[in-house]
């Protein structure tokens, strides 16, 4: 498989703060690569290094097989990005914005081609509106159009759903999937929401304090055997006793005042609930989640030491 991005032992320090620490990962051609971590984990710093906004303290970045230091222009000519907020010139129209950034990338498009780009992100009807009149979601979509205007092979999106309403998040998700499936682009998308990355990415990495914690395909990481089921009942003591005296005892993870936690395969959940009802236990609620979510939850809870994730 061809690597589009290859990051090796990348480190960035700002005086005493190490924002990115010996980070290595690779993004393959055609991937939607989820770049996951809590706020301040080093995602934006890494993305800024990929886009040459920040110079690495050490390590190397190769994009399309070229060293970023020596082939900056060639690489950026084939890369589009939306970095954090989609800040654009408020006094320009959507059409003028696209024109301006096309010129900066030395791309010549005709009016129809610009309109097609705006159509792609659902903004053709607002082509002549000033950016200052746009909602956050529209600005985000225009930012994507700007990133795509020179038809790059690699798209880098830094927290593209930040500040969007649920409809905006769904639109953005569909847009990213369309970039991969229809336009065959390679997309690196950062987020602090696991659920979001899970829905769009085929491969992902989780970083914390600038270090890699886990990397792999979403299928590998979200293995169906790793479902954590949280059961709320009307009688916790009885429920615990029944489970401990059964074959489910080995799968018991924890017990608290509100419920009982078990780790089991997803398809075992219906049988468990049926069996508990047969044991005269009134079930108030059953919540299933993936163990990776637990792991990520621990990371995103401040001041917790977290061991590397093992699937």
């Amino acid at each position, binding site marked *: 498989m061809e690597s589009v991005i290859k990051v090796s032992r990348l480190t960035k320090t700002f005086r005493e703060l190490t924002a990115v620490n010996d980070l290595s990962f690779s993004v393959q051609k055609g991937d939607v690569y989820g770049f996951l971590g809590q706020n301040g984990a080093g995602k934006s710093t890494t993305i800024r290094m990929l886009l*040459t*906004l920040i110079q690495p303290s050490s390590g190397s970045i190769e994009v399309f097989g070229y060293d970023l230091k020596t082939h900056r222009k060639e690489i950026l000519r084939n890369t589009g990005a939306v970095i954090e907020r989609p800040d654009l010139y408020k*006094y320009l129209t959507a059409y003028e914005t696209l024109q301006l950034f096309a010129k900066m990338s030395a791309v010549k498009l005709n009016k129809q081609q610009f309109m097609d780009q705006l159509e792609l992100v659902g903004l053709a009807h607002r082509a002549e509106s000033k950016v200052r009149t746009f909602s956050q979601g529209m600005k985000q979509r225009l930012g994507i159009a700007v990133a795509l205007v020179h038809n790059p092979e690699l798209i880098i999106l830094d927290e593209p759903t930040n500040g969007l309403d649920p409809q905006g998040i769904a639109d953005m998700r569909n847009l990213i999937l369309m970039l991969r499936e229809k336009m065959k682009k390679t997309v690196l998308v950062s987020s602090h929401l696991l659920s979001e990355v899970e829905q769009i990415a085929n491969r992902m990495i989780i970083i914390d304090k600038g270090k890699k914690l886990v990397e792999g395909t979403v299928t590998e990481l979200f293995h169906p055997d790793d479902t954590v089921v949280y059961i709320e009942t009307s009688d916790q003591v009885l429920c615990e006793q029944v489970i401990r005296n059964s074959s489910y005892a080995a799968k018991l993870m924890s017990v608290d005042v509100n419920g009982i936690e078990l780790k089991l395969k997803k398809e075992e959940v219906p049988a468990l609930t049926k069996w508990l009802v047969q044991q005269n236990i009134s079930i108030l609620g059953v919540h299933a989640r993936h163990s990776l979510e637990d792991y990520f939850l621990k990371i995103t809870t401040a001041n917790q030491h977290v061991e590397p994730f093992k699937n």
Partner: protein
Amino acid sequence: MWSLLKIELFKVFKRPRTYIAFIAVWAIVSLIQLAIYVDGPKYMDFVLKDIKDNFDVIGNPLNGYFVCFVILQTLLIHVPLLVALVSADMIAGEANMGTLRLLISKPVSRTKLLVSKFLASAIYAVILLIWIAILGLFLSMIIFGTDGLINAKSYEIIILNGNDIFWRYLCAFGFAALALVTVSSLGFFFSIFAENSLGPIVATMSVIIVFTILTTLDIPLFQSVKDYFFTSHMIGWKGFFEMKVDADGMAIPGTIRNLPAVLRSAGILLLHVFIFTGSAIFIFNRKDVLS
């Protein structure tokens, strides 16, 4: 590079803020012209009161050339602020809007980006000066007519013939353009350090005010260094309105009294432009963009 410059000029002239300076210049020039049109003779009597006791003043001393001279002396103190409004915003404004990171991630070298931005701010300064020339010189020539120019100083009076003035104004405006480009480069230099244009604007004006005060103070400590202040050379345009005198003490039309000094001032200003802009490019090329 030409394409980048066109983009930067497009952005500069698309912003409403850019036109504040043009409106301000129009307002100031119009007020001066109105005041001279209404109260001009009284003003001329005041200016020429010592001369009129010993000389007969013939012709029309209150003409367009004189009005333009008054306008230039007044405006060239304030125009740097208007120039700094744009030049100090070139990088800091982009950082403030959040568009700087988008620009840097485009396949354009930082040096080219900065040079095009500086050139755009310099072109803006020159266009502003052309606007001053249109209103201050050409409009004054239409309203007040043309004749000789009396340049009264504390220790001498220089009288220039009407047919020996226009070219001097062209040269003076050219020199003033260089002075404003110098201010522009200073504002541009400060602009790379900030994420809000207010700081660089205030810093630029502070430097100009402090240096101007030091230049005008006749304190021996500052005498030796004030020649290195660019503000000392910004008023070099006045040199174009002084003539050489022959052995009989007669003024020689078509000459400039101390052309080497004027050219030296122009050279020092140009050197400052290169230092400020070169330093900005050098530092910015090594800077992490965190905005």
